[in-house]
């Protein structure tokens, strides 16, 4: 017989164990559902296409879904259609906003809630903390060049230079050590590249690349005093070389949306942006891997966190221009690096 499931998640190309936002979202949903005794389930579309996403949403709705959570910007077009097809179902779109395929119309119905994150802020904290901890030769691995990942990278660069400026130390961050891997899975290429970077003197790589970060972790552990900054979740458990992680509260966001919905406080038809101020992004509380500097780094992080929340520091977002401007105010000129941060805009 068929069972029904009230809370549904539809995954995008990755699975629920992608060590990234799919997994984070799923864990949030599970936590809420188990606590509140709700039925929950995920659906995997048959392929990556708007039609298949829509079909999977259909399936979820037929399976009894009252609220559908979809992590990833890939769902933007599908949700745009689904929100009108199923006015009685609630949609939570993480990392995106519904629009038509050609971007001509953006529309968020009452039954849809969009959740964005200020990844640049947590990237900034990470960069700041690392330089503060004495690491001044940095690199960046992005899984692919999409807005969320770009924001991580831009924040990382900005935070590092900001700290270097504050401490008045020289920072090494060449454009050669900033790359988009084009893969969220570990590959020999990623491992080899990371090894080469570490050999060339890089001491920390921020791996905003899902599972591919695992390749960087291996390279770091093989070196000495080499580190990786994890992403999305606290990855310190995955490797001893993960010095800290850029947390992104997808699970918390899912829980918040579910709580609102079940408590009758659904407030859709809008986009919320979760940054430092909202508790959407942060570094984990444990700074022990900074060794002797741990306390100092923690203190500095808390200070700069407050400044960002207060708006005293405005972290550049995902465009080259704002990063360039930010660096200029610090008296830094690293045009090559800036160009790498947000490659080739279309059209």
């Amino acid at each position, binding site marked *: 017989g068929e*069972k029904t499931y009230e809370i549904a998640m539809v995954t995008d190309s990755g699975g629920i164990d992608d060590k990234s936002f799919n997994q984070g979202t799923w864990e949030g949903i599970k936590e809420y559902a188990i606590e509140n005794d709700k039925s929950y389930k995920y659906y995997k579309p048959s*392929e*990556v296409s708007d*039609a298949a996403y829509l079909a999977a949403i259909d399936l979820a709705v037929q399976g009894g879904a009252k609220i559908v959570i979809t992590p990833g910007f890939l769902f933007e077009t599908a949700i745009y259609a689904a929100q009108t097809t199923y006015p009685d179902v609630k949609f939570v779109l993480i990392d995106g906003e519904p629009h038509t395929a050609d971007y001509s119309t953006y529309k968020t119905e009452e039954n849809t809630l969009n959740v964005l994150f200020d990844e640049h802020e947590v990237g900034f904290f990470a960069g700041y903390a690392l330089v503060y901890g004495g690491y001044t030769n940095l690199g960046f691995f992005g899984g692919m060049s999409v807005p969320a990942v770009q924001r991580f990278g831009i924040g990382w660069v900005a935070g590092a230079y900001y700290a270097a400026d504050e401490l008045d130390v020289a920072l090494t961050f060449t454009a050669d050590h900033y790359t988009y891997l084009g893969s969220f899975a570990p590959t020999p290429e990623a491992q080899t590249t990371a090894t080469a970077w570490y050999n060339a003197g890089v001491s920390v790589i921020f791996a905003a690349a899902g599972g591919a970060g695992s390749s960087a972790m291996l390279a770091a552990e093989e070196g000495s005093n080499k580190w990786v900054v994890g992403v999305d979740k606290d990855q310190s458990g995955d490797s001893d070389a993960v010095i800290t992680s850029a947390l992104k509260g997808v699970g918390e966001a899912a829980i918040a949306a579910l709580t609102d919905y079940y408590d009758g406080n659904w407030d859709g038809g809008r986009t919320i942006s979760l940054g430092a101020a909202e508790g959407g992004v942060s570094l984990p509380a444990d700074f022990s891997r900074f060794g002797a500097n741990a306390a100092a780094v923690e203190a500095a992080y808390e200070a700069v966190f407050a400044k960002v929340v207060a708006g005293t520091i405005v972290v550049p977002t995902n465009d080259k221009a704002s990063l360039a401007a930010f660096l200029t105010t610090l008296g830094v000129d690293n045009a090559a690096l800036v160009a790498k941060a947000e490659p080739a805009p279309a059209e």
Partner: protein
Amino acid sequence: MKFKEMIAKLWLGIKKLFVPSSYSAAVPSFIAIGFGILFGIFTMFIIWMLVITGVFTVDNDPQFFYGITLLLAGGFNQGMYSIGYTLYRAAPLILAGLAVGFAFRTGLFNIGAPGQMIVGATIAVYVGIRVSMPAPWHWMFALLCGMIAGGLWGFIVGALKALLNVHEVVASIMMNYVAMYSSFMFIKGNNLLDGNTSHTLGVRATAMIPYGTSAFFGGYVMNIGIILAIIAVIVIYIVLNKTTLGYQLKAVGFNKDASKYAGMNTKRNIMISMAISGILAGMGGAILFLVSGKYIFVTKDMMTAELMSVGFDGISVALLGLSNPVGALFAGLFLAYIRQGGYYLNLANYMAEMADVITAVIIYFSALSTALYALVKAKKLKFKSRTKSRKKIADEDAGGEV
């Protein structure tokens, strides 16, 4: 009158195609399919038992019986809607299978279908985005360009083999990767990326291959890809079996030396063969992406998952279809059907990968069953001949008495 004759002839042809000879050739495939599905059901049962007995705990318990019905109902689960979807998914599979099968028939192992699909898709999408043309011509042109690109990619492998003796398997494997990274460069170099994502822009509406009668198939996913695939099947069937070109290509495939002896240009034939195979794969790639809401991603993972894998599926389809064009048609449909069933397994809390396990088992058993079938056949014949000779001896004995 004449029309009637034609119909009669056509009917006869169809009968000849499916009934006695093809049927018996397909028997091993049916045996294999039976085994594969049984194996799948068995696995599902085991998982169910393990969960029920508490050996494993999962988020949602699998529902065994419901799962079986979903699996078997495959592409029929959501009626017309899922039939349409199945046909839509089958088209590229059929074409990939046709590409690999065609090459097999001409003695070549085209493990390069993935790469040919990639370039076919990339070029078709390029034309679909950048060229402005009225509706029917635009998609046709895009499709054609994709086919040419795929053909060219296949041709390179053929030329390397024919002229420089490079083993087509290695060349194909390398060309797959070259295709992938070239495609990335091409897409980025031509600014085809959709700025906010890491995939291409959508193709223009005029470049989308027509999606079929909306009401009938629920209107969204069904497109004429399947019809194009069937046309390709027919064309390839005719080329292989009715034309001098097919005759030559097969001759070279079966026996290169004899073909050379008979005055055929074996090198050219190898190149043509690979080019045709590439054209088919390129067509598959183009059909896969000249679709609304479908984009090429410039990441290794996605390219592998979305395009490369379909090319590799082509090998399965070709093998299951016995390297026969009509076989590829049915094998492609079957694979899409079972995958669709796998997708619906979601509902019964089994993973969709079940379909892949089943497919793999089917392929394995189809390898075995050809042998099993031959064995059975041989045994039967032996038995027959023995009874015959026994009868003969008996007759002779009888004659002796008289």
